[in-house]
């Protein structure tokens, strides 16, 4: 007798462990590929798809074996489909080797390829991207302070409001109780009724009729005694209140777009914003982005305008901070939103504006921000020396405010700087 076994319900991800080993092995290559992919995307698009198809170079992933090479030597190919050849005919060697490769030719499993293409899930993508990163300690302590009350499912209880009645559980218990106590089924009683009815009409067999009527009474008494649903059957969903951190965040992108910012610098800034967005998105259910560009005036714009339109004018930082403050007050109350800000600039500021910047940062911006990251982009050439804005911010940072600052010159530095900003102190090597 053959056994037929349904294995479909077996745990599915049998190869998950192998996959994890593979991803670990290919981590460096995957990371490079991931960064490559992210460079081409809009900020909010990166990692948005359910899956990311990436190509990685195969070095370190080959499975080598001794095999004969394609070079010199004598081979014999036996192939089907001869049309015109006679023994002794000479055939020019095909370039691609397409026509002449016998069973020995070609690699059946595509080994030896230079590149390897596969999909990684969004979670794997982001896990790799932000491995070991944390929101800064400072922000975390504040995070735990600002919490909301929420409720969470926590099993079942025997009492509760009718609205939380759990039908499935209740009915299951009711059914088992009815079965156990032999409560007569409705069909049984109906059947009996019909039988009685028939006998009454025909008037035959009064003995049996009496018996049936007695039986009918017994059954209805039993069904009255054993209720369809008894209070002991009732089960309610149980909820417990739990503190829940605010699960939405807003991210302010501030950028100096005056003439001194080159396209290169903007590109650097864009990459940084992109990383920050992804990072926040990992931790908050809902993330909004506000773009504020400034010259000597500041305005909130959309992403396209933010990165690609040109403006001329002097450079003042405080209007941008004012604009941010306005937007916060209008739309993003610190009670409900986790506020993050990232500012990119080449460091220019009109010296007269510096006191205003300090005042705004101290009074209005930093108190409501979880984290304020400032990156100074300086293009390839780099101007050495310390800029106005850097000095100002350095002073603020020294007073222990949630302000982090770094300089970036090249594309390759973006990710390290980002990691550096968000690597918890205890993990820095």
């Amino acid at each position, binding site marked *: 007798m053959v056994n037929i076994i349904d294995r479909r319900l077996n745990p599915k991800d049998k190869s998950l462990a*192998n996959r994890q080993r593979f991803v670990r092995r290919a981590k460096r290559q995957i990371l490079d590929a991931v960064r490559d992919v992210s460079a081409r995307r809009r900020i909010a698009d990166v990692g948005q798809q359910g899956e990311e198809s990436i190509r990685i170079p195969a070095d370190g992933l080959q499975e080598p074996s001794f095999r004969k*090479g394609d*070079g010199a*030597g004598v081979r*014999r190919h036996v192939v*089907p489909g001869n049309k015109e050849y006679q023994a002794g005919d000479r055939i*020019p060697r095909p370039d691609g080797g397409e*026509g002449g490769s016998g069973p020995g030719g070609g690699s059946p499993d595509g080994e030896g390829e230079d590149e390897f293409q596969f999909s990684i899930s969004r979670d794997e993508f982001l896990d790799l991207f932000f491995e070991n990163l944390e929101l800064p300690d400072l922000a975390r302590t504040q995070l735990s302070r600002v919490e909301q009350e929420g409720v969470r499912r926590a099993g079942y209880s025997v009492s509760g409001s009718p609205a939380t009645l759990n039908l499935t559980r209740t009915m299951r218990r009711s059914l088992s109780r009815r079965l156990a106590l032999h409560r007569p089924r409705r069909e049984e009683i109906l059947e009996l009724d019909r039988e009685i009815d028939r006998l009454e009409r025909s008037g035959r067999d009064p003995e049996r009729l009496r018996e049936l009527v007695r039986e009918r009474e017994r059954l209805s008494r039993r069904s009255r005694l054993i209720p369809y649903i008894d209070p002991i059957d009732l089960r309610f969903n149980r909820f417990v209140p739990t503190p829940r951190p605010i699960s939405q965040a807003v991210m302010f992108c501030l950028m100096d777009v005056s003439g001194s910012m080159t396209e290169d610098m903007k590109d650097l800034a864009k990459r940084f914003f992109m990383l920050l967005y992804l990072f926040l998105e990992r931790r908050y259910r809902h993330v909004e982005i506000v773009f504020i560009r400034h010259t000597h005036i500041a305005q909130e714009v959309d992403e396209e305008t933010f990165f690609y339109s040109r403006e001329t004018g002097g450079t003042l930082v405080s209007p941008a901070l004012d604009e941010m403050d306005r937007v916060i007050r209008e739309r993003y109350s610190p009670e409900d939103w986790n506020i993050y800000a990232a500012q990119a600039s080449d460091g220019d500021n009109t010296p007269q504006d510096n006191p205003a910047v300090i005042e705004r940062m101290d009074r209005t911006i930093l108190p409501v921000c979880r984290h304020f990251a400032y990156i100074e982009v300086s293009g390839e050439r780099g101007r050495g020396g310390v800029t106005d804005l850097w000095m100002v911010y350095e002073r603020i940072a020294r007073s222990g405010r949630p302000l982090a600052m770094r300089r970036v010159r090249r594309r390759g530095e973006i990710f390290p700087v980002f990691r550096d900003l968000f690597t918890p102190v205890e993990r820095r090597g």
Partner: protein
Amino acid sequence: MAHDLGADTGLLYDGPDWDYRRVRRAFDAIERIAVDEMGLEPYPSQVEVISSEQMLDAYSSMGMPLFYRHWSFGKHFARDEMLYRKGVTGLAYEIVINSNPCLCYIMEENTMTMQTLVMAHAAFGHSHFFRNNQLFREWTDAESILDYLDFAKRYIADCEERYGHAAVERVLDAAHALMTHGVHRYPRPRPLNLKRELERERERQRFQESSFSDLWRTLPDRDTGEDRSDPDLDARQTRLGLPEENLLYFLEKHAPRLAPWQREVLRIVRLVAQYFYPQKQTKVMNEGCATSVHYAIMTRLHETGQITDGAFMEFLHAHTSVVFQPEFDDPRYSGINPYALGFGILKDLERICTAPTAEDRRWFPDIAGSRDVLGTWKTAWAEYRDESFILQFLSPRLMREWRLFSVLDDTDADAMEVEAIHDESGFRAVRRALASHYDLARHEPDIQVVDVDLAGDRHLMLEHRVVDGRRLEPGNSRMVLRHLANLWGYPVTLAEVDAASERVLNRYEAVAPDHAVT
């Protein structure tokens, strides 16, 4: 109602849907034909229903239901999944495991006709082949393979826990690289018994821990007073069992710096390689056997009115695409399809047995007209492997039908030359050339351990016997040599020697280990 169908019409099923009752009925009907009418002797079967995802899972670890863990399987899975999702490749209809009971997977997405076909193909065709073919009987142990794999999986998981993922991965990487050269190609006196392996493992470890290897003694022998640091080659070769072509075996037994668990890991990989070795040598026959069996059974089911005309048409569609052989100038051509060749030869044998021509009588005097098709098939299935099977049974008529021709490609000449075609003077040459393609010993490079420099820097010397001037692919070989050196613990050299002239064609200079495996 569905369950009355069979009683009324004799049909096993109607329509595409399958359920357990129908599968079981179909299986029983197939079994009646296969065992009672055809006299096949398969293992008892276990049919397992899986989803496409599980099929992919099974693919990636060599088709086995349980296997130890390694990143390369994850890589294969990632690629297979990608190809499958994009629709580049379909999934196999079935996977069958050479075990007792024979595990046969069927996929939930398939229609009832496909399930019937798959069961006939795998649970009877392949299973009969596994059980009766000489190579399998000699080299594999269907009784205990699943137990052994279970042991292997746990053993390697234990090692990972005890010595760390990285250490185990290094050994496995190296062992996998040598897997093609981890088999005994010629029978040893005792057949494998994997169950005994399990018991012997502990014993072996105790013994090794309590004994020490005399191999590395370089001190002068006190008794004789002579310096043993320069023993002659013969004695050394005898002591180490050289030359040895099973590289994994050699390393397991003689590598000086491996820990016991590392030897055991090598052993696991080696035994797995040995288990699969017969399958590599009988691809054409195995598939030919299974395909002929499913063809015979499905035809019989149709003849006896157990499946509908529609189902039979569906079967024929699947069958013809399985045995389709494009010609060499067809863009779809990618080598000779083993299903087509195996099925072609077996069907041709049937013709030779029942309706031979004068030519057949000349070429196959002992079977032509014997009328014993099944007997001929069974003998072929039991006694041959691909190479000898083709050499013995590929008929002139089939070569003509396929219009087979043999092309000689010598890189020294400026063009390829048609050596022989499907005519009276070329039949034998074409057949010989085709058969040699399936000779693994010829297909895979012949690499042997020839010597160890015991007195000097202990480096290991390998030799590749070059046939037809075909040298090794250098990039891959260097990587494998590095793995080999890591296992050996000392440098490794490889010389490529022409088998005909004994001339050294190429030398891979000492590849040193880049990290100790320990």
